[in-house]
């Protein structure tokens, strides 16, 4: 994936650039908003990673200019402003995701993966499909039923939402923060192990009674469903 990174911090910039390159992405790193805007207008990127507060032109202004010229490249904001208002501002400017500093690289990587695939077209997260299937597991969102190997599995409302989120992103790393934000609508960390607990309950229902595990934990990073 070709990624534009706008980050002025002398330490974070190279860290993110190197990390993404190690994962096989091509990264153009800028530490000035104006340069980044010129590059983004002249070339075709798959993803923009923009810091909110940089000299010259801040990330918000850069994205607003791009969106005004009908550029729909997915954009992820990096910011030290974690407040809800700042988050809303980011989404209103046309941002697709918002990550607050400090963050784990795995978190950034997972979100980059999610946004990149959205760019590639056939985005399973956006389909209106109401029956999700993965190998022998079926989740019917309208009937609110779940079966595996023909066996009926009873799921709670939140578990259905959680499983839906995971099944729409097969083979992709999904972090704890992503789940809190998307499934529980919590932009804060409730300190208690909400995600871990619900994942383990879900696992006990969809994986434990069967021989192949579909939901895997990647230690310290997050969860991967299928593949």
């Amino acid at each position: 994936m070709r990624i534009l990174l706008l980050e002025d911090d002398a330490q974070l910039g190279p860290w993110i650039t190197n990390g993404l390159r190690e994962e096989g992405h091509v990264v153009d790193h800028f530490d000035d908003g104006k340069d980044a805007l010129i590059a983004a207008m002249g070339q075709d990127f798959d993803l923009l990673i923009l810091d909110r507060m940089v000299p010259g032109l801040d990330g918000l202004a850069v994205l607003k200019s791009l969106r005004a010229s009908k550029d729909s490249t997915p954009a992820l904001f990096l910011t030290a402003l974690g407040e809800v208002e700042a988050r809303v501002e980011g989404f209103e400017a046309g941002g697709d995701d918002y990550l607050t500093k400090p963050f784990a690289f795995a978190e950034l990587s997972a979100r980059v993966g999610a946004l990149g695939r959205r760019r590639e077209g056939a985005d399973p997260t956006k389909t209106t499909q109401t029956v999700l299937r993965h190998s022998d597991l079926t989740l019917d969102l309208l009937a609110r039923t779940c079966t595996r190997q023909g066996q009926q599995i009873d799921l709670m409302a939140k578990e259905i939402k959680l499983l839906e989120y995971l099944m729409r992103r097969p083979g992709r790393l999904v972090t704890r923060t992503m789940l809190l934000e998307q499934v529980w609508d919590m932009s804060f960390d409730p300190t208690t192990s909400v995600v871990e607990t619900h994942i383990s309950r879900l696992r006990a229902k969809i994986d434990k009674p069967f021989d192949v595990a579909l939901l895997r934990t990647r230690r310290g990073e997050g969860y991967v469903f299928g593949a």
Partner: protein
Amino acid sequence: MSPCCARGVGKATSLVHRWVHQLRWLRRSSTLRLAALLSGIFALGFVVAIFVALTLGERANERRLDATLSTIALGGAIADTRLDSAALILRPLDDLDGLPDPFVRVVSRGGGVVRLRDDLMRSDTWRVLVAQDGAGSPVFAAVPIEENEDAQELLAQILWSTAGVVVVVTLAIGLWAGLIAQRRLLRINATLGQLSAGDLTARTGLTRSKDDLDDIAKTLDQTAAELERLVAQTRHLSASIAHDLRTPLARLRAQLEMLPDGEERGVALEEASRLSDIFDTIMRVARIEAGQGRDGFEEVPLAELAEDLAETFGPVVEDENKALTLDVKAPAVVQGDRGMLVQAIANLIQNALVHGGDQITLFAHGRTIGVADNGAGVDPAAFADIVKPMVRLDAARSTHGSGLGLALVRAVTDRHGAQLELAVNDPQGLKVAINFTHL
């Protein structure tokens, strides 16, 4: 914005509403009340004064007439002779021929005023007096007084209408002054309402500088401007603090992640995470405390909120070998920020999980939502301390986690204009409730 088709109806309704509101205000207008009181006193004074003046005037008139009549009778000296003319009747007492009954009655009473239905010698009102003539014989004399009466009536009319005009004018001036003052008071009141609802750009915009109301409006505008400036400053400051602290934390995280894998790296990363979590909570409490108004408020059904939270946290509590019970009774719908309320209740559940017993109850009773446990509880004497804003949390901080939990609950409660209620749970434990009943 309202759809254009509904605008006309809405406008009319709001106009009627405004008038009703204005009338209600009018009744409470101090200027108008004063004017009404003064008019009342005026009116009473007029009534007494006019009544006294008219009565005294009439009496004096009568005395003067009687004196004249008795002089005429004395100068008469005409036993058994009538001395009637167009403006005088003077006869011996027993010569009552041709006089109407009321006249005769007054003569037999010794004198007074006679009011006749039909004119007698072109006058319907007469003053009669029984006296003696020059020879000492009893006679009666009478003069027409219709013109006097008419003059008296005219005087009364003039006095009464003047009084009426004065009272009406006083009331009108009062109403006018009341309306003018009321318009400004409404403006001041509306501005105060907007300010308390969080719109710090609200101003009265009254620039006149003639009286005390103008002074109040001006001071209000200055205070609002100062408030707006301070809030903007606080917001800017907290954004700067967030940026200045999160950036080094992000660098620390980056450097730790670059270290080779190992147990120490894991521990360090965990500590770094905890550090940024605490910082996040502090910033969140500060933001909630600094925030104002009802921006982002929506209708939150407490039952649904409680059920949602119970489903989310129930399994977490169960994994700790404790039980979370949902207790919903006649739950209300309140105005609030759902995200903040979720955060507050999540904090209460977390607190109960750490300090409470094995039975945790999440309840929604009427306009109250909260969490109770059956643990050791808190000494009621310490209730005031554990909810104090973060400046005074040092003691609580040492007891668990970041210790900012209740400070956040308190900030969320204050932001909603709700009451944070702490009580001893029956039979033991702590019961914390957010009560949305406005006092």
